[in-house]
């Protein structure tokens, strides 16, 4: 009996080891442990044994059964692993094929630049104000202290609709509009982004372009506040290594007036082609709101002071990306738009 069991075990071990597939293994299992399997047959034949031998043989057969089940399980796992491996090997793909396309429209680089600037000032407590593009000549010029014979009022420079209505040449009329709307409330702290127009068309001038105007009016606003605000803006826009400088300049609606330069974003201030070897880039004009403009806005210049600034979005974007032709912004050429 013992020999019988051991022979079965012996043969089964060889058969299991030689099985090449799970199917083969399964038929092996059936032939050993199935209802008509060899071990099952042995157990069934136990009736013919001496009752004293029965427990012993039973135990032996059960041990063999346990052993075989273990062997089968191990072999099955082996085969499973190998089959998985083989299947995965056939599933190899060319990972260098391009990924599937998704639609992604681009934000126009001008608008992206404008929004970046807006966000900075919004986070500094400014609100957005707006005004019309077809503007009263009075608000575009006279209310801003630009007298009738000022060169800026040359017909050559401005688009006129009627004698009294002009395509605004700057966002500055929004200054006056906002003050007239808010007076006598304080503080006034706004930015006014928008389209403006000049009668000019070449590589650096576009008849339509974009500006952002800023205006702060309150008691005790100083030129130092103007400097601090613009410095904070420059840090956020160009990075904390940025330096700014204010140079005296002239705008009819501010006094003192200044041009603001930032240290060149390309060379960091050592001088390069973009900054014309000066190390500085001129980015905006600003100044303390002229008393007459405050008055036109409905505030008493002896009680309040203010500062204003204006920057050209095209210029900021051109400097930032080294774009050399302003007309690219308005052609909407996909080859251009997709670069941003």
């Amino acid at each position, binding site marked *: 009996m013992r020999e019988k069991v051991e022979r079965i075990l012996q043969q089964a071990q060889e058969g299991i080891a030689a099985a090449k597939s799970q199917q083969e293994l399964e038929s092996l299992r059936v032939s050993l442990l199935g209802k008509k399997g060899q071990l099952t047959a042995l157990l069934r034949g136990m009736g013919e044994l001496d009752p004293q031998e029965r427990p012993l043989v039973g135990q032996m057969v059960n041990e063999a059964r346990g052993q075989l089940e273990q062997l089968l399980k191990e072999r099955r796992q082996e085969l499973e692993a190998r089959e998985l491996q083989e299947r995965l090997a056939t599933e190899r793909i060319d990972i260098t094929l391009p990924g599937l396309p998704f639609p992604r429209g681009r934000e126009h680089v001008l608008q992206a630049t404008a929004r970046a600037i807006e966000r900075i000032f919004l986070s500094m407590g400014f*609100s*957005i104000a707006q005004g019309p*593009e077809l503007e009263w000549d009075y608000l575009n010029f006279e209310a801003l202290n630009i007298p009738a014979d000022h060169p800026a009022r040359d017909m050559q420079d401005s*688009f006129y609709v009627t004698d009294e209505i002009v395509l605004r040449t700057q966002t500055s009329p929004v200054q006056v509009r906002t003050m007239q709307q808010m007076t006598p409330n304080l*503080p006034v702290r706004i930015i006014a982004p928008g389209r403006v127009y000049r009668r000019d068309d070449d590589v650096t001038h576009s008849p339509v372009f974009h500006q952002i105007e800023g205006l702060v009016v*309150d008691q005790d606003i100083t030129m130092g506040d103007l400097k601090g605000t613009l410095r904070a803006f420059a840090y956020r826009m160009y990075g904390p290594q940025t330096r700014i400088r204010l140079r005296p300049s002239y705008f009819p609606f501010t006094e*003192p007036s200044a041009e603001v330069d930032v240290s060149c974003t390309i060379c960091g201030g050592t001088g390069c082609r973009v900054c014309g070897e000066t190390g500085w880039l001129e980015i905006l004009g600003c100044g303390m709101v002229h008393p007459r403009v405050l008055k036109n806005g409905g505030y008493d210049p002896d009680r309040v002071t203010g500062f204003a600034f204006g920057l050209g979005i095209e210029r900021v974007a051109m400097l930032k990306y080294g774009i050399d032709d302003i007309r690219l912004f308005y052609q909407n050429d996909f080859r251009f738009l997709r670069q941003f």
Partner: protein
Amino acid sequence: MRVSYEWLKDYIDVDLSPAELAERLTAVGLAVEGLEDPGAGLAGLLVGKILSLAPHPDADRLQVCQVDIGKGMVQMVSGAPNLAVGQLVPVALPGAKLPGLESRLQAMEFRGVTSQGMLCSTWELGLGDTEADRAGIMILEEGQPGDKLSSALRLDDVVLVLELTPNYAVHCQSMLGVAREVAMLTGLAVKEPAIILPDSAHGAEKRVRVDVVDTELCPRYSTRIISDLETRPSPLWMQQRLRKAGMRPINNLVDVTNYVMLEMGQPLHAFDYERVQDKRIIVRPALPGELLITLDGMERELQEDDLVIADAKRAIGLAGVMGGENTEVGPATRHVLLESACFHPTTIGRTSRRLGLVSEASNRFHKGVDVNGCIRALDRAAALLAQLGGGRLTAGPIDVYPHPVPPKQILLRPARVNKVLGTELSGEEMANCLERLGLSVRRETAAWQVTVPTRRGDLQEEVDLIEEVARVYGYDRIPATIPGGMASEQLVTEQTMVQEQAGQILRGCGLNEAVTYSFFDRRDLDRLQLPAFAQQRRLIPLANPLREEQAFMRTLLFPKLLEACAFNASHQTLGGAFYEIGPVYLADDLPLQDLPAEELRLAMAAYGEIMSGGWSGRPVTAGFFWLKGVIETLAQGLHLGELAFRPSDQPSFHPGRQASLLCNGVPVGVFGEIHPLVAEAYDIPGPVVAAELDWQALAENKRLPEYRPLARFPAVHRDLALIVPDEIPAARVAAVITAAAGPLLDGIVLFDVYQGQPVPAGSRSLAYSLTYRSPERTLTDAEVDAVHDRVRTALQTELRANLRS
């Protein structure tokens, strides 16, 4: 304004290098645009002296010269006709580089005789382009053999090119003005030029009578007569200073007037005294239609608002702008009537602009000259004329100045200075700043009295003085602070935020943001097939457009995007999609009496292949349902509420493929396929789709998303396929289903539309997936069957649908 550094040193002992000076001037508002080297190109060239001349043995027209170049002798061969022994000439030795030439000079042989370089003409040196400049070798007036040529020509210098803002143009458009700024910067003193007038002549007194008709137009007219002059070229130093300042030397008489203008800022004019009729000068408005031939040879027709200088008979000059040919000084001139006057700035500006005659003089008068500087300039010029032309003073100064202008007094509150600037300057410091500009300050009263010389016409009121204090103190020394106080409430207009959100959604759908011009071409209206009565035809015209295509303000936005599509199509791009949120300009009445409405529109346009399918997928192409899908996605993303689509008949769109869009029942615009003829007119390969939506009307509908509790009970799905005639819109089918199903219907999806065999012609098959669900319990099959049967019956009875499942 071009400032020669060498010339500037006549007036101030500045020891800053030109580059340092440029930086300091820029910091006080005199922006230096660039530094120029007037001798650039002359590097390596020398002065030579011709010691001997001999004919070339084998060439008739060549001469062989021995030239002393300081450190030795060289032999040169030249064909120039104007050589003589003893002349100083420019010499270029082998290895030198002449301006405008790429290669370096080499020794050359002319028929067996070696030339160790060349002698140069003015033209070859790049210093002149006249016939005379080319005809012969340049003969030098100054220098020693071996000297640098640039130094012998007085071109060893640096020119600072100033870009002056209008306020500084008044007092900085002169060498002395710039010198005063340098004095302010450095604390050095300005050295005024010494004016040494020769004794007046005896005997031959000349006379002139001056009448000023309108002293407002001409507050001051002063003159002198200088006699017995000889017209000749000015000395080299004067010629070169004029050239460096950007003016052309003419002769000593004209050059002196220009030189003094550059030096002092006062324009001057020299008349030929003998040609002034009856020896009278009358300053008067021009007669209407009066003619004058100006110095440039052009006949000018004048108007009453022009100001002329006339003699007894006729106009002899256009005041402040240009002299007349009839009294021009020339080689024959012996006596000069010198004018130093002050004219009304706006009048001069207007005349010079109208006639297109903008000169150094008219520019200065237009910005305003110092009325109290006339006589100094007159005397300075008279002295120089006497010195350079050998003349004598025979009359003057005659000075018509009936209302002398005193220096201006301006009140300055010192506290105000610190309040505006944010500084803590002491009174001492402020006063010092102003005094460095030549202003005098009386500090006895709370508001100081500041006296401003008339040359600073730009300083008119307190705030001008505050700016001057800031400028002198230094903008860089003003402390940077952040404005205090509460931040104003963040009124980021809802509109701005919604716009940004809409942009994100549209870009997610593959549309690119465009930025277009605000203009229309009148021909756009026809390209768009707009009928005669269309209100979009009421274009606002510009009075002075740059060009015909940009002569009107746009009344529609999507055509601008069609242009963008056309531009890309013409650049071999197979397709793409755009959106823009921007204004259109709508007039109620023309011509405009009031500001027109500026309405924000959301426009979209697409053509061709919007997104490639890559190597496996199917491409996305422009079509009605793509655009409708974009609009639906946008509405869902912004939570705009219910959309509805109605038939529409806009002539720019395909008659059968356009829809009017309603948002919560309110029409907000139109979209669809562009009419093929319109697409053709814009030159875009079809099909093209576009939308024009009223952005404000649309964005107003933005709501908070409405939260509903999640379903707790399972859903039951049933499919439904039916055949209906083509005329029955899908929306009607869906409406019937929804109405019949009642509250248990939780969702309806159209998942197939089919036309063709075996569906009969004129009909189509629609397949829906319906979801039934109750919020209160799990539905039984029987309950669902009952509802679904109701739906089937309704479709059969109301639409005569043929149910296939």
